[in-house]
């Protein structure tokens, strides 16, 4: 077993007297240092504001709509937050979602296969995109901004180019009459009733993914490694953490989430527009950052990213429900992002003061 030095040998400065002065930080202070605290406060404020000013906001139906809007961003934010904690980010995530939906739709349509074959094909494509991002990153040691920006531009071109080649138009054919569509829709885009309101299945999946990712992050070796490679990759390597594998794995996790989101897109609307998805990658990053993830890596939680996505969902729906001009949504989202970053930083320094 491991060894320890004897306590006699190890009391250089009168250890017992010193340890007496060690005081535990209070529970409140400890809570305040959690990365997602700032976003939780923000969520409560946004909720209260819309709850007060917009009558329709108060209905249960509106709330499930908010949850649905949050989940479409939130599912991707799970992968993006993990990646960001691991010290990288992915600008290709938005178009990767569309690439996934396009692959499934066109593959099963072109070869007249059961849609589940297309779903699996899309899974392979999405994981390959993630792997390629990660592999190029660790091979070239370029910053993820450049690697994923290139991937973003290439995918954007490929999405439209290949779709036009295969279908002759900019969107895929309607696949709703094909074999396996109903069961796939049940998994990716159905809804179910809870207490008289309809809830989209993505909300459920979102919570499952957040729970799973949080467990991995907090309670497994891999989670420890993710924080370590994001915090200080050189140090992590020195103690035996497989840095390259962790980074590639994280990009592939984003790929996995992009696959799921792409499948939702496809089975929700039966067709996929090849030019969509551009700009969404920044919303995923926004959700993660509002939730307390540091852009520089090594810090943050998936729960925070979920709260960030929820704030986005509330703002998006709230502005509509309050009867305001929809164009103001992004102004508020942007202002919120700025505020969240400033407040998060301030809370962190305050709470860490002894």
């Amino acid at each position, binding site marked *: 077993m491991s060894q320890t030095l004897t306590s006699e040998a190890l009391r250089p400065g009168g250890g017992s007297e010193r*340890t007496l002065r060690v005081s535990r930080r209070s529970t409140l202070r400890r809570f305040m240092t959690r990365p997602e605290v700032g976003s939780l406060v923000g969520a409560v404020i946004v909720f209260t504001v819309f709850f007060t000013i917009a009558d329709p906001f108060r209905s249960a139906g509106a709330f499930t709509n908010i949850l649905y809007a949050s989940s479409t961003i939130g599912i991707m934010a799970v992968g993006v937050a993990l990646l960001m904690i691991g010290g990288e980010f992915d600008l290709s995530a938005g178009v990767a979602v569309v690439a996934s939906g396009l692959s499934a739709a066109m593959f099963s349509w072109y070869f007249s296969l059961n849609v589940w074959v297309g779903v699996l094909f899309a899974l392979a494509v999405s994981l390959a995109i993630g792997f390629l991002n990660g592999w190029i990153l660790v091979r070239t040691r370029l910053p993820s901004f450049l690697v994923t920006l290139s991937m973003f531009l290439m995918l954007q071109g490929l999405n439209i180019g290949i779709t036009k080649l295969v279908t002759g138009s900019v969107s895929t054919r309607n696949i709703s009459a094909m074999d396996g569509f109903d069961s796939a829709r049940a998994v990716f885009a159905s809804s179910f009733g809870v207490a008289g309101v309809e809830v989209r299945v993505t909300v459920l999946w979102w919570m499952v993914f957040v729970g799973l990712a949080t467990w991995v992050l907090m309670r497994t070796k891999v989670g420890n490694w993710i924080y370590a490679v994001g915090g200080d990759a050189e140090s992590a390597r020195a103690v035996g953490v497989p840095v390259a594998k962790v980074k590639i794995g994280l990009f592939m996790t984003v790929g996995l989430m992009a696959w799921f989101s792409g499948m939702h897109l496809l089975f929700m609307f039966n067709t996929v527009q090849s030019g969509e998805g551009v700009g969404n990658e920044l919303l995923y990053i926004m959700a993660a950052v509002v939730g307390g993830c540091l852009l520089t890596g090594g810090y943050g939680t998936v729960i925070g990213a979920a709260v960030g996505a929820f704030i986005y969902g509330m703002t998006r729906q709230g502005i509509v429900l309050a009867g305001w001009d929809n164009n103001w949504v992004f102004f508020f989202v942007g202002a919120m992002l700025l505020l969240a970053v400033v407040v998060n930083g301030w809370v962190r320094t305050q709470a860490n003061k002894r």
Partner: protein
Amino acid sequence: MSTMTETGTTPTGAAGAGPEKAPLLELRDVGKTFGNIRALAGIGLRVDAGEVTCILGDNGAGKSTLIKIIAGLYRPTSGEYLVDGEPVDFSSPRQALDRGIATVYQDLAMVPLMPVWRNFFLGSELHRGVGPLRMLDVARMRRIADEELRKMGIDLPDIDAPVGNLSGGQRQVVAIARAVYFGARVLILDEPTAALGVKQSGVVLKYVDAAREAGLGVILITHNPHHAYLVGDHFVVIKLGETELDRPRSDLTLDDLTHHMAGGAELDALQHELARGRGPEEGPAHDAAGEGPAVQGR
């Protein structure tokens, strides 16, 4: 894990080992060349259990190359490297670690944003449960890290505090404690006091002393002869890749050490030269010796 079994079969309490016993670690006539550049030549080094061996040298003297050979990062191009009397040929730091040779580097291999206990076990996490439910044994890791650090009496605010919140000395001690806990028999400390203030250096040196008393062999790399003399049992001064001095504490005074460290004969000559221009009020070489390179730079 092999680290565990290794230390299990060779107990660490070897402090009282007689001189007839093979040293924990020995280098014989070790040399290292990079292409046609000779970094080290004819270096001999012996580390016994319960002894602090200090390696001193100016920047570029070859200290880092020497540590890297001992730590398993480089292979020597000539000479022999023995652990417990048997020749070894390490091709990775992991192999050196498995033989109980642990290196605490200047950057400490710690992640500033992570809590102390997560850093303590990073790369060697403890688990409980099986299969897909195999998870970190957080309670045990926190308890052990807490115990180990309390034994040293470092004033930690909280075992959950990020390492970045600790002082330089505390960080250094956490790194040392980690190496010791994971079965180090030989502890290599690379400039542990380089970036620290007087008080923080004291904390680290006390702990070096404690590690010695616990029966570990310690290799302390430093360019501060005052720190070295406080804890060292044996002193090796390296200059331009060769051993300039290799003496036990009993044959050496602090003045000798600082003198050798600062360049010895070279400094005498330099002082002579400078004295001519500046007048006789310049102190003797030994007084200024601690700042030898600075004198040269003026």
